[in-house]
């Protein structure tokens, strides 16, 4: 069969060359990078060796006398994630309406709000934290504001996409029954997008719990400050304890939020049907 229909078995020449070029180019770039960064196997093995020693020193995890400091810092971390996500979502709702093509049909406004959101998202949460520290000083409040700012950018985009994906027909229905612009949004679009928005907010809360654990590295509150300090002082047992605490907290939050998400979507879907 292969002899009778050779053209079926041979990939087009151009495509083959292209994939070969991608592989060769990608590998070359990787090798160049390793060369540029002065990567050497002996150094790498030395590092791994040191890392192994660190892992051994971590056993057993032990908070020392710091347990309550860690617990309160972890509570602070959760507060940062919660308020940051909530604030970001509340702020993002109005602008996402502006950025949605099907609600506000003004191209300039649409374009401007999209680029504005892109710019905010282009800056990492940690950079926002540094900027907010200049405004409200060191502490968790700066962390809340940082997460709020970067979530504002992400939510604005996600919300406006959800609104754009909503069905046009309920809006037409509300309109034809004499509803105003506001009515058509409240009764035509909002019920459709609400479950989607809620589940996105919950998803971001999970992800922000992780971000909030590190925001303390630059001094914006939460457990990150302790983590960075204990690593700097090579208190490996404490580091291991903090890492375990974060692991447990994050998985509890993930579990709760996924249950909540399912319940919410299920209930809304049931109410709608």
């Amino acid at each position, binding site marked *: 069969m292969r002899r009778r229909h050779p053209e079926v078995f041979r990939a087009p020449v151009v495509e083959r060359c292209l994939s070969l070029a991608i592989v060769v180019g990608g590998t070359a770039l*990787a090798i160049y990078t390793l060369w540029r960064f002065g990567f050497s196997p002996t150094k790498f093995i030395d*590092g791994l060796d040191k890392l192994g020693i*660190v892992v051994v020193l971590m056993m057993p995890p032990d908070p020392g006398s710091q347990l309550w400091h860690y617990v309160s810092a972890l509570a602070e971390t959760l507060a940062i994630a919660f308020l940051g996500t*909530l604030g970001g979502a509340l702020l993002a709702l109005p602008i996402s309406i502006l950025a949605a093509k099907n609600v506000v049909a003004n191209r300039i406004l649409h374009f401007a709000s999209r680029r504005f959101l892109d710019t905010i998202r*282009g800056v990492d949460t940690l950079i926002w934290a540094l900027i*907010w520290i200049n405004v409200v000083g060191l502490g*968790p409040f700066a962390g809340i504001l940082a997460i709020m700012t970067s979530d504002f950018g992400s939510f604005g985009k996600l919300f406006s996409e959800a609104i754009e994906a909503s069905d046009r027909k309920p809006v037409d229905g509300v309109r034809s029954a004499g509803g105003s612009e506001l009515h058509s949004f409240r009764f035509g679009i909002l019920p459709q997008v609400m479950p989607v928005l809620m589940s996105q907010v919950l998803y971001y809360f999970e992800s922000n719990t992780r971000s909030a654990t590190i925001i303390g590295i630059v001094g914006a509150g939460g457990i990150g400050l302790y983590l*960075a300090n204990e690593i700097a002082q090579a208190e490996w047992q404490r580091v291991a304890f903090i890492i375990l605490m974060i692991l447990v907290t994050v998985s509890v939050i993930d579990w709760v939020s996924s249950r909540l998400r399912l319940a919410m979507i299920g209930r809304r879907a049931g109410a709608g049907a």
Partner: protein
Amino acid sequence: MAKTLATLPPAQLAPLADAYHAAMAVKRRWTVGGLVLLVVLTLLSAWAGQVDLVKFWAGLPRFASYFHDIVPRLRFETFAADMAEWFWNFDGWLALLWDTLLVAYVGTLAGAMAGFVLCFLASANLTKSTPIRFIARRSLEFCRTFPEIVFALMFVYAFGFGPMPGVLAIAIHTAGALGKQFSEVVENVDMHPIEGLTASGANYVESIRFGVVPQVLSNFVSYSLLRFEINVRGATVLGFVGAGGIGKELISSIRQFYYADVSAILVIIIGTVFLIDWLTEMLRHRLLGIVGDTR
């Protein structure tokens, strides 16, 4: 004619209306309960997070003036000279940014390779052995729970300052994140080609190579490109903890109040992120298009 639209007789209508009100009341109770919970949690968090609205209000003008301060003075008549002064260290920053991009690139590549190997072990349809699957899944979870900067902190301690710890940190986080996404793709593949291959005598690796990989490759590449975008952003801050790239310059200029430098570096970073987003999006669309054609 309007009479034909008459409502139901009251006897039939009453139970329906009651049911409606009852259903609405349940819904309303849920909403009110949810709102109360939300408010309680908000107040608790505000207390734990030391929210101080007075301080915030007092500091807010400083936020605006900060942005005012970091924007350099550009005059029309001396525009070129002002720009040159603003980006005085352009070549140096570009070199650091190139480092950042390479950290993200190699980190994503290595992480994607590790994720590629692990995702098959974590997929329920390909790996029947529960212990192997459990170990694969838990290790992926461990890798992605911590933001890369936590790994970077520890690797800086073990490997010394420089971009190498950054590469490793990104690789580990990426392996965890991509491994999970990959395995979700793998769990949704069509099992028929694999059954066919197994029936004609293929072993585990061969059945994956010819049965699974052709189905999932385009998705894998698309996810990897998305992850590369994310990693470029992540790599810009790895320098904060000494793991290479532009972040080191950024944090030192923010800490030392070199205002014009802060804005110059931010402009460069945002521009690069835009460019990378745009390029990868184009590549992704192109890739999905090509695969769609040949299928």
